[in-house]
């Protein structure tokens, strides 16, 4: 069980690195934003993994329940708001990509950079 106890964190690392790879290695700007979304989701998973308490349940107080263990509400609050903020910032990124496409007629970073050098 000790091995599986860290499995969540390894999946977090795997997702974080897949997202990180997409951000630094991919040339396509939309792919970079998708990578950033995966990176962000990995951080969400890290926080939510930390909130779990063995034998616990969702932190909604049940009247009359004696000695009920509840999971930690704090990481949930932080991530709840972060998800909505995340989609808003991703939308801002996508809006900028749309404008780049209109200005350069490409969404590949290297092609746009080459045009900038020529100009």
């Amino acid at each position, binding site marked *: 069980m000790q091995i599986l106890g860290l499995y969540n964190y390894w999946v977090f690392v795997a997702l974080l690195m897949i997202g990180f790879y997409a951000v630094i290695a991919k040339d396509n700007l939309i792919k970079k934003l998708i990578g950033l979304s995966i990176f962000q989701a990995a951080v969400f998973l890290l926080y939510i993994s930390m909130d779990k308490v063995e034998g616990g349940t969702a932190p909604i107080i049940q009247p009359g329940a004696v000695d009920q263990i509840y999971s930690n509400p704090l990481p949930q609050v932080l991530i709840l708001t972060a998800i909505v*903020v995340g989609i808003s910032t991703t939308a801002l990124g996508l809006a900028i990509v749309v404008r780049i496409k209109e200005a350069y007629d490409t969404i590949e970073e290297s092609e746009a950079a080459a045009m900038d050098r020529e100009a």
Partner: protein
Amino acid sequence: MTILFAVFLLTMLVITAIAIVRTPDLFAAVMLLGIFSLLMAANFFVLDAADVALTEAAVGAGISTVLFLGALALTAARERSSLAPPRLALVVVLITAATVVYATFDKPALGDPNAPVHQHVAPWYLEQTPVLIGIPNVVTAVLGSFRGYDTLGEVFVVFAAAIGVLFVLSGDRPLSAVFRPKDAPSTGGLKHHLIPRIVGKLLIPFILLFGFYVQFHGEYGPGGGFQAGAIIAAAVILYAVLEGEDRALVALPEPVLKGLVAGGALLYTAVGLVCMLLGGNFLEYSVLSADAVFGQQLGIILIEAGVGVAVTGVLLCIFHAFAARDNPA
């Protein structure tokens, strides 16, 4: 049994993420990202985070897919095939991965009740929520009251992002024209696709009803303004996709949408200021009523309404700004 299910879900997440990054077809990548979000929501649910799972399902699998598709329609559906595999990037990623995996060996095992994260303020929140606020959902209590400043900040970040998207996408046009297509008449949505249209329209009232339930039941069960805002926005976006954006703008005109964005943020701030006028601190809801516990509940209901209104407005503004942009192709 649960642990097998959790391991399966986590492994699926990694497989989906690899598929997303590998496919050169951006349309497939966006669809897979929707599946990824749904799997992530299932994982959150297994980890006892019902509120977060609800948000991730509504935002990640619903709204985010629509926004990415909107951006794809305006840019390109395929990634240009890369010339050489970027070895340097792979080396950097592997070294970072090894470092972070090494760090995880110091982390307490999943579910360890003695982990440091469970020792600080969390037990206090769980003990004091029934006494000070008197609502069952501790997540809502922490979000609305104990950490109300934080949530106000998040609402303003969302607000600022919406303003940013509107400015960036309005470009050379005046800001008031950002929801109006420049010349092309509206495509009229899926008017000629009978089955999606009929089935979709049947779903809309139930999605809206569920959205309002999530909004107003957020104190007792999983839910609240962030989730409800995303669900209600999803229902309106579904209507816009089925009937055309111009019809959706008749139902919820542009001034109303912008009013929702500003009004939600203003309502939240106004509650804080009223608390100050009544002699309390900013966002100290206890002074709103003679009974401190009722004051807290009143404050939380009001700010959750503000959050819900602001999130609905922001997501719809962003959607319409993308939808009205002309397709260059």
